[in-house]
């Protein structure tokens, strides 16, 4: 989401990099660009002002001269200040006697209900027994929405009639949690404006009755300058313990995260990164700061790979690569594993330096190519996949017809596969590489 900002900062620092020594005037030119970028990224203008003042103090002076290039020095200072401003990623504090109550609050449309389901799923994976509470009696079908999500994920939802006041529903839910041995209660409250006094009084009431150990503000990553007022008002009324940033999978630069963190001082705990129930990640300030500065997000990529790649399958494939027995069936398996990791465009963006390249490389192109390759291999018989040499002209025509491509495309794939196979043979005859691959 921060790509836009990182591009801009990159351009600034490229210019700086070409100069010799960094003067006060240089710093000011750079900071002017940083200021524009941060403002276009929707960081609150007051927050920007404070941020730049801190960077300026650190940039002008000894620190700059010690480093290799002035540009690098400024990048480091901006990066460090970003880290300081974003703070540590917070963990949920769910210690103490069960049931622990987590209250989700926020504006309309920020994504509370979806996030409630995601959080419940995550907690269940961590061995907890969550109870979801439908406390939004205002928006039509909000209760039904949570009930449906609960059914999909097999997580119990406590709901009552929309005529029951939300504080009462929440209190009843606690009683039910104690009886049913649920150890975490997640309250999905209605969206409300921070200036709506009556509605704010309602969540104060909920808070008093349920004593939540976590009160999380669910905030849209696309929020503008208003972010500071929203976060500040909710924090003052109900005492926030953390933030969850939603819709992070878009291209919003997400300056709101910086603003809200700065004004409340509470940590950002999670990022919601998609519409599927498992699109939910812990917040890592270092990754986010790196991404802002265009350094890529390799950690997320590696973690994604670790989760999605079936370890046994990967080992088996590696073993087969070693012995040069890698066939088209293994290739298909690999292809499908990569596909499971998500849209290829998203993956490419996480690779450092790929920001610039991926603009020319459209996701449709790579995705389309992968799809075609998969279709071609799927149209082969098992024997053909294991021994591509079987594929004579007639068989190739059949495969091409089956997968809706030209024979030429089939030939192209086979040629590429043969090249890969040759490469693997060479690799596997290298003893040092063999050892490296065997030690995953």
């Amino acid at each position, binding site marked *: 989401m921060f790509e836009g900002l990182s591009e801009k900062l990159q351009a600034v620092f490229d210019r700086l990099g070409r100069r010799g020594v960094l003067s006060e005037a240089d710093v000011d030119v750079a900071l002017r660009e940083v200021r*524009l970028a941060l403002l276009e990224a929707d960081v609150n203008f007051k927050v920007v002002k404070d941020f730049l003042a801190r960077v300026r103090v650190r940039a002008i002076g000894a620190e700059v001269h010690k480093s290799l290039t002035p540009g690098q020095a400024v990048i480091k200072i901006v990066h460090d200040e970003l880290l300081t401003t974003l703070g540590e990623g917070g963990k949920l504090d769910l210690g103490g006697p069960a049931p622990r109550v987590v209250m989700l609050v926020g504006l309309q449309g920020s994504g509370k209900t979806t996030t409630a389901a995601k959080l419940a799923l995550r907690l269940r994976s961590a061995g907890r027994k969550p109870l979801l509470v439908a406390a939004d009696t205002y928006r039509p*079908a909000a209760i039904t*929405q*949570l009930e*449906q999500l609960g059914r999909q994920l097999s997580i119990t939802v406590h709901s009552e009639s929309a005529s029951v006041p939300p504080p009462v529903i929440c209190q009843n839910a606690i009683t039910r949690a104690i009886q049913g041995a649920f150890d975490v209660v997640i309250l999905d409250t209605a969206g409300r404006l921070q*200036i709506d006094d009556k509605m704010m009084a309602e969540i104060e009431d909920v808070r008093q009755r349920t004593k939540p150990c976590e009160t999380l503000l669910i905030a*849209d990553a*696309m929020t503008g300058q208003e972010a500071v007022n929203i976060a500040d008002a909710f924090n003052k009324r109900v005492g926030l313990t953390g933030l969850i940033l939603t819709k992070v999978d878009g291209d919003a630069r997400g300056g709101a995260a910086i603003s809200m963190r700065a004004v409340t001082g509470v940590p950002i705990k999670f990022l919601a990164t998609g*519409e599927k129930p498992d699109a939910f990640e812990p917040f890592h300030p270092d990754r986010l700061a790196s991404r802002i500065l265009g350094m890529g997000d390799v950690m997320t990529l590696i973690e994604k790979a670790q989760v999605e790649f079936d370890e046994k399958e990967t080992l088996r494939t590696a073993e087969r690569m070693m012995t040069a027995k890698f066939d088209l069936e293994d290739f298909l398996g690999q292809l499908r594993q990569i596909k499971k990791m998500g849209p290829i465009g998203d993956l490419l963006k996480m690779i450092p330096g790929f920001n610039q390249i991926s603009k020319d490389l459209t996701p449709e192109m790579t995705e389309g190519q992968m799809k075609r390759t998969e279709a071609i291999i799927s149209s082969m018989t098992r024997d053909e996949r294991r021994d591509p040499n079987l594929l004579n002209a007639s068989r190739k025509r059949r495969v091409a017809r089956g997968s809706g491509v030209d024979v030429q495309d089939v030939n192209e794939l086979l040629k590429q596969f043969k090249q890969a196979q040759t490469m693997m043979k060479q690799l596997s005859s290298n003893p040092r590489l063999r050892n490296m691959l065997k030690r995953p």
Partner: protein
Amino acid sequence: MASLRDTLSRTRNSVFSRIQTALGQSDITDETWEELEMLLLQADVGATTTEGLITRLRERARADGIVRADALRGALKRELKALLLSHPATHSFASNRMLEVIMMIGVNGSGKTTSIAKLCKLYKQRGRKVLLAAADTFRAAAVDQLQVWGERNGVDVITGPQAVDPGAVTHDAVMAAFARKADLLIVDTAGRLHTKHNLMQELVKIKNVLQRTVHEAPHQTLIVIDAANGQNAIAQAKGFAQAVGVTGAILTKLDGTPKGGVAFSIVSDLGIPILFVGTGEKIDDIEPFDADAFVEDLFEA
């Protein structure tokens, strides 16, 4: 425009009344410009647009020999109005088509379904026979939400089972609209981020279904934008416009977030007129967008 005035009063008090203070009875200094810039930024006008405004205002001040800050007020008003009037709204509740089709699009949580309910009532009040298509088959209970509004409005809602292809529901809805002799079909689509290629392709498919079944449809493609959004609203509008074309925008949640500054860029940079503003959760909380009044209101003491 009385209630829009109320709505915007917060904007005025917190931001634009301070513009007046900034442009008070004193000579123009560097601080005047700085203060002015800050105030525009705070209203989500955006750094680029703000910079452009300030530059033009400085030129005008120099050319016209304006030295007093309060004289800048009229000039700023004219600049802001010019931005909004560069692409004025042309919207009519009447249509001589046998079936008019409106497609509603936008990112998740922007307020599409609620806006449809509000529009539905406005059209119905003007004697139109409205039918709603629940083409958000993705989000849990989105169909139920539209159905509740349909019942409250006394309007039929065409639905399909969840997870069914939204194009199929759209097709069914068009057929139902013909059969029931409705003269307006409003299609509710699932919220989607403009960066999701596959989901944008799905939207193209819905549009294709409409194009194939109704002459020149969709006649209006309205993007719903949360006024609390910052500069990303521009990227949203751009993304949706590229995929399916956008004829107008509805700016929602203008009741609590005294912002709306992003409207200037959406109109002037993208050429998408703002047609309506959503001012609350109730069904009557909608107003036609009046650019002149919008700017005037921002300056009213």
